[in-house]
């Protein structure tokens, strides 16, 4: 068979490439190794779920991937940029443009309305007010909260607050969505609702999703599932093509 007849998929360059990443903290006299010698590649558009017990380094890994923290050792390449050694301004710009965060506690600014909370994500990008408002409306629409745009977080249910947080993460059209226990504070029904929404957004927008959760029912939709134990990641399931 002629080689030209074979269909060979083009190699996909990984979006993330982590090599020998460790992150340690000092707590008094003790040194705690939250992430140790981690090697990992994440492709664009992939959904990676990370499971593990509390205190085993899941959140630290997510923060390293989102440029919120820097490793004590190793390299974290994101689209060719080493987050470990890049200038703070570079990392901040990446946070502003490329990374969308969803937190367990929603982290909405309590004094700002849903619309203003989402708008806050566009401020560092210097988007003009008119365009900002249009993009915010579209983002809130995508999470089904247009009619709650003028509500303060305190006036919304937990599920609605998390939807606002998702809209805030997505409004800047990031390349990566980093979700830290996004359903940790929600009841079962709301959890499923939010996970369905996240899955739909991931699928429709071609996002790279890294989701951290200790809940098995949340991570089961992911393409790859890893487990963090004592700061080490082991891949348990890989359904990628």
């Amino acid at each position: 068979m002629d080689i030209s007849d074979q269909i060979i998929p083009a190699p996909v360059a990984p979006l993330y490439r982590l090599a020998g990443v460790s992150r340690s903290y000092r707590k008094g006299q003790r040194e705690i190794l939250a992430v140790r010698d981690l090697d990992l590649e994440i492709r664009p558009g992939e959904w990676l779920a990370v499971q593990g017990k509390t205190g085993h380094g899941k959140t630290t890994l997510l923060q390293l991937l989102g440029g919120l923290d820097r490793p004590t050792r190793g390299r974290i390449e994101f689209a060719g940029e080493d987050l470990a050694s890049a200038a703070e301004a570079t990392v901040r710009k990446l946070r502003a443009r490329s990374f969308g965060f969803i937190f367990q506690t929603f982290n909405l600014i309590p004094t700002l309305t849903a619309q203003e909370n989402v708008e806050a994500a566009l401020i560092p990008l210097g988007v003009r007010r008119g365009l900002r408002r249009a993009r915010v409306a579209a983002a809130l629409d995508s999470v089904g909260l247009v009619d709650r745009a003028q509500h303060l977080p305190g006036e919304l249910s937990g599920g609605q607050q998390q939807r606002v947080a998702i809209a805030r993460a997505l409004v800047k059209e990031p390349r990566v969505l980093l979700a830290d226990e996004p359903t940790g504070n929600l009841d079962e029904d709301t959890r499923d609702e939010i996970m369905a929404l996240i899955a739909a957004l991931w699928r429709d927008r071609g996002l790279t999703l890294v989701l951290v959760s200790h809940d098995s029912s949340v991570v089961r939709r992911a393409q790859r599932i890893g487990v963090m134990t004592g700061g080490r990641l082991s891949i348990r399931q890989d359904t990628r093509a």
Partner: protein
Amino acid sequence: MFFLTYLRRELRRRMRQAIFIALGLAVGIGLVITVLGASSGVRAAQAKVLRALYGIGTDVTVTTKPKPLSAAPISGRASSGSGAVGSGSAGAGSGPHAQVCINGKCYSSGTIDTLLSVNYGSLSQRTAAAIARLHGVSAAAGGLVLTDNRIVLPSSSSPSLEPPTSVSVDGTDISHPRLGPLSDGRLAAGRTFTAADADSDVAVVDANYAAAHKLAVGSAVTVAKTTFKVIGIVTQPQASSPPQVYIPLARAQALATDPATGKSMAGEVNTVYVAAASASGIGAVSREIQHLLPQATVTSSADLASEITGSAGSAAKLAGDLGKWLAVLVLLAAFAVASLLTMAAVARRVPEFGTLKALGWRSRRIVGQLLGESVATGIIGGLIGVGLGFAGVAIIDKIAPKLSATVPSASAAGSGLQTQTIGPGSGPVASGSAVGHATIAVPMSASVTIGAILLAVLLAVAGGLLAGSFGGWRAARLRPAAALARVA
């Protein structure tokens, strides 16, 4: 604008704390304004006294000490009887043979009316012109500060010695209406001097003196046995001790006698009033004059202010020392409280700032947001403080008693007879001091100046910036991961 929306919402959310901080700053700023208002009131009271002494436009006065008298210019002997006449006291003459000698000339009857320069030595009138030519001097005018003493000697029809009278007379340089004691007067009736009056026997009299002696425009006053026609009546500030009669300088020079020499004072003055070209140049002008006239006493308004004693001086010290430090302490305390509360607020908002950093906000923008909130609180405090300051000043105005000011007074000398008068059969009984002093009741009127309001606004902004910068510094140093960890 997102900045303002965020700022407004945060202030509303933390309204109680914002009000507390604003009120703290307001009390400090209100106190500063009140103290400044009181100080300016005291200074204004002092200035009233000083203006009345040397005129509104005078920055520096030049005088010389009177020369020692070779003999008493006025002395007396009684050929019989006893009694004494003191300055301002009732005479107790007992015989018709009292004799008064002035500069060697003795009188035993009639009226003695002399115009003397008793407080100051004489200066050539050319001195004023020489001073006017000095660098930094905008104008200089000579004047004569004189006392008209009148003694009516006993006669057969009036055997008792009447108490002597004295009137303070100012020889006014008509060509310099903006300098000298008359410059601060407000014309109540008639007119003031014109160039045509230079050699005329015309006088302007003080309103109080006119009232006491029932004088009106057109009346006559006698100075050194010369009748002057009253052409105007002036009111001087309440706080002052003004000359009672103003006459043209040339006429005063012609009529006055220098007690040290017993000679006429033609071509001489005893005070030079100097206006500096700028307030900052007063010191340099004083030094130049002192260099030109080493024997002269050069007195600036600041020197005079320091010589004011009495409650006006005490109030000035109180406002300047205690008030100033109290205001500074309260202000520092307010700044410290505002800073601590802002720091505490930042501590509570660490997760919020962590989230903003996760969203890609610059630290600078977060610090700016915090500073904006603090400055807005400071400005609210400043506005309340200005209101409190106005209230404080109004209260001071309402309750403050009149201040007394004891001043070194040129014209006040006129109130004391600078002669030795002998009653029949007795030695010297009264003498005046060479330098006159007057105690004046000064109404104190505290006021809020534009400068004080501007200072209040500046302090408010500074307080806000100070409080915000502590909080901002803390917020800027937060690592996003550490800040977000505070949520979990």
